[in-house]
């Protein structure tokens, strides 16, 4: 199994740990539930390719998360995994294309766009920067998440708050930044010629 598949598997574990640190927010609990199921599924039936890892992880998230983050992240991973296909080696360029397709699927499913104070505000700049490097993607996702603070939510439950949603960093964008940061760390740990 190539290093990218290993990295994606480690990613799920890292996210479970990261999300357990978020605290008692529903989003954190939901994400932890989902990624605990992802880890169990990957351990009990390890897929052969990075694409299959992402598809399996996506299905687990859709099945086990009780909130909107399940279908959204699940769709992201499933679409990206399908785009990767059967390849056993995945370059940063191919991963970028796959994640771009996944993020587009998330935007379509949720009917949201950048600036709506959602996970897309972290994911879209991250995918764009991933064309340069994993480190740039991590940086862009963090900046994107921070940039949601003054925004007024136009999607999801926070949108009912209207102007009162401003001044708070969007949880979805925050968890997206965590995911991208873990991806960058996994890529750095994995090596195999991938420039972090």
């Amino acid at each position: 199994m190539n290093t990218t598949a290993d990295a994606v598997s480690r990613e799920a574990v890292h996210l479970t740990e990261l999300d357990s640190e978020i605290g008692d927010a529903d989003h954190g609990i939901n994400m932890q539930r989902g990624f605990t199921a992802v880890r169990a599924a990957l351990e009990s039936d390890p897929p052969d390719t990075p694409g299959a890892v992402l598809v399996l992880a996506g299905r687990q998230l859709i099945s086990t998360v009780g909130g909107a983050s399940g279908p959204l992240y699940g769709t992201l991973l499933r679409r990206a995994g399908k785009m990767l296909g059967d390849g056993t080696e995945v370059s940063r360029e191919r991963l970028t294309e796959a994640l771009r397709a996944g993020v587009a699927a998330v935007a379509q499913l949720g009917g949201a766009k950048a600036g709506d104070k959602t996970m897309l505000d972290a994911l879209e700049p991250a995918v764009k920067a991933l064309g340069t490097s994993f480190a740039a993607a991590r940086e862009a996702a963090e900046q994107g998440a921070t940039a949601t603070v003054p925004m007024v939510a136009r999607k999801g439950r926070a949108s009912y708050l209207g102007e009162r949603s401003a001044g708070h960093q969007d949880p979805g964008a925050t968890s997206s930044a965590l995911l991208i940061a873990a991806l960058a760390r996994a890529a750095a740990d994995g090596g195999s010629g991938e420039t972090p």
Partner: protein
Amino acid sequence: MSLVGIVLVSHSAQVASSVAAMAGALSGGGETAPIAAAGGTDDGRFGTSAQLIAAAAAEVDQGAGVAVLADLGSAVLTVKALIAEGDQLPDGTRLLDAPFAEGAVAALVTASAGADLDAVAAAAAEAYEYRKV
């Protein structure tokens, strides 16, 4: 004759089961189309359960299609994601674009009359056009 099945997906188990009961009561005395509630998470919290939705859809499927009504947020997104999966819900499962309670009554009345999925979807969507003020 097989009838279109109805699935009600709400963040609340009580909302889903109560709207199902209300729709049944408002659909007249005779036999109605199968209707099932998928409310809350599978461990009893407010939220959405893919497993409960899949089980409810399987329960009401008679081969004529399954019409799903969802309330908001993750209920809508989870149904869409399950349909996109392709193998999680019965063939001919469709998410209706309709108000939850009013659409459920319209869908059940129409399905109980033996209408096909297109007609059930149209009847439920028409509930949007009934303005209250």
